[in-house]
């Protein structure tokens, strides 16, 4: 091979190495956010750790298929949710179609009526403990929880959540609507009790 062909090759390799390093650094910088979402998509901390590791292993192998300038966090979460489904951790099921009786103001009304003394909104929220939220979230069925976790905890847009979960945006909206109400109902039961 002559010097003239070797040089562009070397330059290409150097450019590729630089792009790869940049990709890996950018991906690692998002790992806290990826873990935060993963932790609530699966049942246990161990599962979440495995899933995040598998995600990064796959992402580092297939970094060339990421289009620079697009949303890397959504790209990583797409890998993660696919792996989660592939590994059978998550059984696909028909979403629960039973009508929800409670409206959006249900949780506030429940907490407010059982709060003593003068109430302001912040004080009403304080009726909830961290544990009320965590346990209520784990009670939300998977299909709804995935969307709630991506949008309300992961801060993804409806469009990103639709892409990550490979479902239509209308489905994201209806599952989010339902998922948030199931979550609120579970928080109300956890904080006030189902009898209150």
């Amino acid at each position, binding site marked *: 091979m002559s010097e003239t062909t070797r040089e562009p090759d070397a330059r290409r390799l150097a450019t590729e190495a630089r792009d790869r390093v940049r990709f890996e650094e950018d991906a690692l910088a998002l790992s806290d956010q990826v*873990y935060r979402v993963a932790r609530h998509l699966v049942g246990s901390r161990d599962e979440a750790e495995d899933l995040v590791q598998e995600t990064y292993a796959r992402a580092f192998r297939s970094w060339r298929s990421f289009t620079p300038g697009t949303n890397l966090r959504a790209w990583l979460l797409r890998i993660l949710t696919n792996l989660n489904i592939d590994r059978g951790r998550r059984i696909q099921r028909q979403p629960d179609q039973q009508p929800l009786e409670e409206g959006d103001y249900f949780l506030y009304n429940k907490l407010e009526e059982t709060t003593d003394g003068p109430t302001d909104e912040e004080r009403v*929220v304080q009726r909830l403990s961290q544990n009320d939220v965590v346990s209520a979230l784990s009670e939300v069925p998977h299909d709804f929880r995935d969307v709630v976790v991506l949008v309300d905890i992961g801060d993804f847009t409806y469009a990103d959540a639709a892409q990550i979960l490979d479902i239509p945006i209308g489905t994201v909206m209806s599952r989010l609507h339902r998922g948030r109400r199931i979550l609120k109902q579970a928080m109300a039961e956890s904080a006030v009790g189902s009898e209150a």
Partner: protein
Amino acid sequence: MCNCDECEQWMQPYMDRVLTDAERAEAEAHLDDCAYCRRRYRFEEHLRTFVRQAVIEPMPVELKQKLSELRTPLL
């Protein structure tokens, strides 16, 4: 201007900023006028922040280390 039932229906889309401009204006006019819905709106804002913070579990340091080890070695 919408009524309280419509405002309740629109509360989450309003907070997600996905209402149309006209719906948004209607919801805001109602919230300006109705203390009942305004209290519930402020509650929802506090609730969202609280839920987001309540579920944060710090990522284990060992996991971060393991992820770094997955990187492609430099030649």
